[in-house]
Structure formats: C-alpha cells, structure tokens
C-alpha cells in the first residue's frame, strides 16, 4: 500500500520539491482536503469518494499526496475499516475549515458576479429594447439595471459614480454608436428629404401659424441643438419656429396635433406613428453615444458584450469605431 501511494504522488507531479510553486500546491491542498474530509466522514474511501463526486482512485491519490506533503499518515489503513490516525484527527478541523472557506469563497464569487450593474441610459429608449438589453446582459452574468435619464443627468451620474456606466451624448465623430436624426410629421412628405427652408413663412402667408420644429430633451445638447438653431437663423425662419420641448411627450403631442415636425430618430418616428425623412440641410445630423464609466473594464464590457443590444435601444444603424 505504501509503494503505490508514493508512486501516485509522483504521478500527480505535485511532489513538494522546493521548485514547486505555492500556487499549484494550494490548489491541490483544497482538493486534497476535500477528499480527506469526505473519506473521514464516511470512514470509507469508496463512500467518501462518491460523496465528493470523484473516483476512488483520485481520492486515494490526493490523500496520499497530502500525507506525503505533511510527512505523516492521516488514516490507519491496517484495520478493516478506515480510521483516522491521531495526526489525522488533529488535522481534520483545519482541513474542514479550509474546505468551508473555499466553498464560501466560490459562493461569494458567484454573488459578486451578480452585483447589479447600474447603467444610465437615454430616457428615449423603448421598454422592449431595454428589456432585451437587460436579458442579453444576464447571459453574460451582468445584472444590468437600466436607469433612464436626460443627457446632462447621465453625464453627472457617471461623473459622481452613482452609476457604474452611462451612455453619454457626444458629437457623432467621437461616438461608439451613431443615431441619424431627421424630421418626422403626421403627413407623409412626397419627397425623399424634408428641407427646413420649406417652413419659412412667406411674405404673403399672412398670419397663418408658422410650422415649427420641436427638439426633444434628448437632443438639447450643443452638438445637436445649436446647428439646428443656427440653420433656423440662416434660413430666415422665425426664432419661435425651432423650439426645445419640455418632454418627448409634449413635443410628440404638438406634432400629432398640427403640421409641426419632430427632430427624432427613424425608430422614434416609427414608435410614434410619424413619417420620417432626413432633413435636407442637415443630412448628417445625428446623435452620438459613448460609454462613460468609472472603471475601464465596465466600459469595455458594455461596449463589447452588449454592443448590438445597445445599438437597438438607441435606434442606431451603423457602427463607427469601437
């Protein structure tokens, strides 16, 4: 019995020579202690190995390695039943503690992986697309919690680390996701593009109400809003003809009840049942989004694992650069 045990220990390749790393030893120590605790509990190599879900030969080999490592026998194999030696009895409590601790650690690791990942998302994201994003994240063991907010609030939440990551609005040129913007209205335009200049009030139009363009809070950021305002002035529209609405609902209500237009993505137009066209003078107008996170790994996780799901939430069409 002594000889095979020794051979086994060498076959494992884990003989405690001075060149062996502490790491490989430690890993074996946990597995060996698990076998040790199981076999002592059942007073049988066969039953103990079965309880530990390992073949009996592996249990024997691990215990033998442990005995070789400690330089003393743990079990007395001379009797018919397996009994602990006095040394084995002294070692059992600490072996049990090590096994329990290892299990607690595994459990903690699983829980840590399931810590909620708060992600600030644009308030314009539709529930269905958001739910799909959360489900997709679950598959990667990210317990995503979507926190809808307006652009300025999202940037602030990410800055003060109240969320782990935020989809912040940035100029399209530096964005990971790009969402083209156009004009949407109740009536279907006959032409493939809608020129803002066509909203200009003519001298002979009298006091008829001027058609307006509504900007939703999501687009109340300088790189989207200011070019539209500048264009309004350059085209000779009235200052009141381009307005920032208090909410998307308020803007949509104005558009549904008049000939006004909403600056929005094609996806939003479809959700609101409006006809969407690119703006003739602003064909390249777009929202841009990038991930802002306190930790680089968090940003990378969203950017890589959830790239397509985020794009669907935003209504983006094409990828620029990761």
């Amino acid at each position, binding site marked *: 019995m002594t000889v095979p045990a020794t051979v086994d220990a060498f076959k494992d390749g884990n003989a405690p020579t001075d060149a062996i790393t502490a790491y490989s030893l430690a890993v074996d120590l946990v597995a060996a202690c698990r076998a040790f605790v199981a076999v002592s509990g059942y007073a049988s190599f066969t039953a103990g190995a079965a309880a530990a879900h390992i073949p009996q030969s592996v249990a024997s080999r691990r215990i033998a390695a442990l005995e070789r490592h400690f330089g003393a026998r743990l079990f007395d194999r001379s009797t018919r039943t397996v009994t602990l030696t006095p040394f084995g009895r002294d070692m059992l409590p600490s072996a049990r503690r090590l096994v329990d601790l290892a299990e607690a650690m595994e459990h903690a690791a699983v829980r840590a992986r399931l810590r909620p990942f708060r992600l600030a998302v644009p308030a314009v994201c539709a529930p269905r697309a958001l739910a799909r994003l959360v489900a997709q994240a679950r598959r990667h063991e990210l317990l995503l919690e979507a926190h809808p907010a307006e652009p300025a609030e999202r940037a602030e939440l990410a800055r003060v680390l109240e969320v782990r990551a935020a989809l912040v609005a940035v100029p399209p040129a530096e964005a990971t996701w790009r969402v083209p913007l156009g004009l949407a209205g109740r009536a279907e335009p006959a032409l493939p593009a809608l020129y803002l200049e066509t909203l*200009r*009030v003519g*001298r002979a139009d009298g006091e008829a109400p001027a058609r307006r363009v509504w900007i939703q809070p999501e687009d109340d950021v300088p790189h989207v809003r200011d070019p539209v305002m*500048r264009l309004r*002035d350059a085209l*000779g529209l*009235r*200052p*009141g003809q381009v307005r920032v609405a208090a909410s998307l609902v308020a803007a949509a209500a104005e558009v549904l009840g008049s000939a006004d237009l909403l600056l929005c993505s094609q996806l939003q137009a479809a959700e609101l049942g409006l006809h969407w066209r690119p703006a003739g003078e602003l064909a390249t107008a777009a929202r841009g989004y990038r991930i802002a996170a306190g930790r680089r790994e968090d940003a990378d996780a969203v950017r890589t694992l959830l790239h397509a799901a985020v794009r669907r939430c935003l209504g983006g069409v094409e990828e620029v650069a990761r």
Partner: protein
Amino acid sequence: MSVTRVLGAAREALDEAGLRGSFLVRDLDSGDELGIDPDLEFPVASLVKVPLALATLERIDRGELDAATPIVVAPGRATTAGPTGLSRFRHPATVALDDLLYLSTSLSDETAADALFTLTPPTAVAAELRRLGFEGIAVRHRTAALIDTPAEKLPPDQLHLAHSIAITAATAGHGHPLPQLDVTRANSGSARAFVELLQGLWRPSAIRPAPAARVRELMAANLIRQRLTPDFSSDASRWSSKTGTLLNLRHEVGVVEHADGQTFAVAALTESRVAAGSQPGAEAVMARVARNLRDQLRF
C-alpha cells in the same frame, strides 16, 4: 379688435419674430397715436441722414451753403453687402451738394452722408435740431462708423458671429462695447422723437417750407423699399421714408399720405435677437405690426 388686443397681438408677433421694438403711429392732423414702447431709445443708424439732410437744407436756405457746389468725393470701394452709391464707387467723383443729399437720403449712401457731415459736422446738425425745437435725437458721430463694425471685419460666412456679438454683448441701460450700438455714444433716438420730426416736416413748423418740401421729396424717392413699403404703398397712397440698418438693428420711419388726405407718421425701431444678417421674415413682421397699429387709427 380692441386696442389692448391689437397691442398684445403685436407684442407677441414681434417676440415670435425675435424682435424688440419701439413703434409709434400718429395721425398728423388729429394727433391720435398708438404705439409700443415709443420712448425706448435706440441707436438710429442711417436714420440720422434725415436730420443731416434737414440741417444741410436749412443752411442752404439761409444762404450759408450753395446747393450747386461741386464736391470731389473719394470712392468708398466697399464690397460687402449693404453700402450703396458712392460707397461702392471705385474712382473719385465730383458731385453737387444737392445730389449728395439725394444719394445720402434716398440711397442711404454712407460716403455721400460723410461728405455732407464734413460741411455740417455732427455738433452743427445737433445744434440745428435744437434750434428747430426737436429734442430726443442725439447726433454724435459721422456715418463712416456705420460701415466699420465686426460685420465688415469678418468673412461673409462668419457674419452670424458679428450678430452674436451685437446681440449678446449689450450692457445694462442699453450700453454696448461696440460704440455704434451704445445709445450713450451712438446717434440715437426713439420712435416718438422721429414721429415729432416727421410731423415737423409734413405739417407747418419751425422748419422753413423749402427745406421741409425737399426732405419730403427725398424721402419719397427712397430706394430701399423691402421693409415697411410693401405694407404701406399703393396707387391710392404715397409712402415716403428712410431706413436704418446696423447689425441687429432694423428701423424705418416714414409718412403715408392717403388719397383722401389722411396722413400718418410711422416710426418702427427694432433690434433682433436672431444672429443672422438677412432676416426678411423679421422685416415682414415689422411692417405687419406697423400696419396693424395704423389700421387702428384709420377711421
């Protein structure tokens, strides 16, 4: 519509067009008038050419100046949008004093006006106004300053920056870092001050008949007709006016004489908060507001 509602609607229309304005319409015979902030003072830009013409013509009438005097005028060589007449000339020209008055008043030619100011400097024009009893119009500088603003210094595609400066840099009490827009340093006046002047020109006053008639004639020949003219001219009325434009300022003062004899003086002084050079929409709203005010008095 009640007067209150007309005024309310007019204020709303001006705001919607990005304008802040001083308006006054007066029936020159009954004295009935209607206005919006008529005492608000504005830099008057080219409107100063009316007092300038009046002062020059009074001096001609007194024999201090000769209308036929040939004057050699250096060319203005302006290429930016806006300047007219001698201001765009590329070669020196010899023009009679009387014709300089026409160029200055009817074409709003800065170079012609500047030549007139050489003969009758701003202080002399101001003294002439005081002598004739017209308070409220300050004449402090010549007209060359009107074509020396950020709008002339920036390339055309950055014109909106000049307008942004004009709109946003104003200080309390209608002051401004650009002297042309500072009512305490620029030539300035209110709608009421100009209506008083028009009343003096169209109805008997301290102004001698000959200079008054000539100013009326020059204003009737005004070539700049895109602002209030479309809403006031017809075959059944005569519209005589002078415009003033500088950066975000758009003014026009004039008189409409109807075939039935009713005559109204109209003064519309505005400043825009829209950073754009060309604003036909704003001009149309100015005209509509002035017309609506006039319509309230036409009975």
